[in-house]
């Protein structure tokens, strides 16, 4: 009885574990709203002076942590000056 309960627990655990690790990826970047990204500067701070920002030829830029294009005059809560 005890063994069967343990086997069941192990199966449930394995199933849960496999569900945890399969599919929906945490890896990579976060969504902009995760760090409350806004297209306007805040307190004179903006992406263009953040160390996580890299300008692109399009005139916009990319963030090391946030997904998609960001504006050089944008801002988010993870702002970290160069």
């Amino acid at each position, binding site marked *: 009885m005890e063994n069967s309960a343990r086997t069941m627990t192990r199966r449930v655990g394995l199933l849960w*574990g496999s569900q*945890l*690790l399969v*599919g*929906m*990826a*945490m*890896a*990579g970047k*976060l*969504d902009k709203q*995760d*760090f*409350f990204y*806004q297209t306007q500067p*805040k*307190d004179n*701070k903006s992406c263009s002076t953040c*160390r*996580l920002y890299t300008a692109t030829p399009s005139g916009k830029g990319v963030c*090391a*942590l946030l997904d998609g294009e960001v504006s050089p005059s944008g801002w988010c*809560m*993870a*702002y*970290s*000056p160069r």
Partner: protein
Amino acid sequence: MEKTSKWSALLAVGLLGFFLTLTDAQAVPSFARQTGLECVACHLSWLELTTVGRQFKLGGYTLMKPVTSGERPLVSFAKDGNPPLIPLAGFAQVSLSHTNNMNSPGADASLFPNQDELVLQQFSLFLAGRVSDHAGGFVQWTYDGLAHTSAIDNVDLRLANRYKSDNLDVMYGLSLNNNPTMSDIYNTTPVWGFPFASSVVAPTPEAATLLQEGLAQQVVGLTAYSMWNRTLYAEIGGYRTASEGFSAFRAGVDLNEAAVLDGIAPYWRLALQHEWDGGTQSAMVGAFGLTANRFPDPLAAVGPTDKFSDLGIDAQYQYVTDTHRFSGQIAYIREQQELNGTFAAGGSSNPNNQLNNLSAKLTYYYQTKYGVSLGYQRIEGDTDAGLYSTGQPVSGSASGSPNSTALILELNWLPWRDRRFTLQYTAYQEFNGGKSNYDGLGRNASDNNTLFLLAWFPF
């Protein structure tokens, strides 16, 4: 003995000087090196987490800036560049304590060791960072500069994932850790609550609930957590004695004093949070609990146990901008003790006791450099002469009451974002059940008021 003390003071002064020369803020801990973030993005002021810090912890410490051209170094303490493969970090705490009265009746200098001198009170090394896309964590090893011993400290190993659709956003994962409430993401619960550092040589009240780090580095627990739509945080799990195959989670801990639990101690946590004003403001209300059956004698884990049922309620508010930062936390823990083991062994006067703890603090920081915090701590419960009336000077209680009240005023100065200097004053209105003559030998609560100076240097 005197040689050891001198060596300790010399080491403290040496480390103080060494870290003071590193003033270009190149030395930041491994999470910052991994993400590229400033300390103050994740922390209101370390150790208090902001929205960004909570997000990072929920993600299992896996968030990492992209690796650019070139190889990742094996070990690095540089702020810029690729994250190192081995996420090594650490900190040193050099402090000086002065207790108000070290000459009360019955007390002698041996009860107040290492006062009025610089000591290396703690030196910690961390392996802290991302392991893979879904796994990360930190392992802390701490050297006690006064006892000259070292042991495992906090450990938090995580698996994390996220489900996101148009209407649903769930961050979830598992935490394997060795200290109940360490997995929590707020700064109200004991492990991450105020004060973040205090004197290790000054007298402190005898009574504390089990949740107030009574099981730290003595147990191992697995908890499952989830954050739903950035609003509802739920966590459930259980802790057991960190023995046998789990003994690494209490490596180096003195087993004469380590807790031994009977079976699994369930832990749970619920919190409702709200973030608004573009993330500038956030608030949380929550509850948490732990029930544990502990053997009264860790070296003889047989017979009746003591059952501790802890229930906590808490709340937090934060206002975070670059210029002004403000936060407030409050937590109340109500502990029901069924002392079947201790009472049977004659260690307590009552078979059942209640012990309650109220902790509150307010913090303000200007330009993340200058901070002031005011804390209030109250422990109160049933009078039990068997538990608290030890008859000892300073640590005893003539009334057998566990009641103590302290106000803590703390000033912080961070000339660089990873260098902290703290001036802390703890004032006791009541200590071990009394305001005056609490130990029955003539010592007053205010005699234990303590001035504490701390230099805290992460690297």
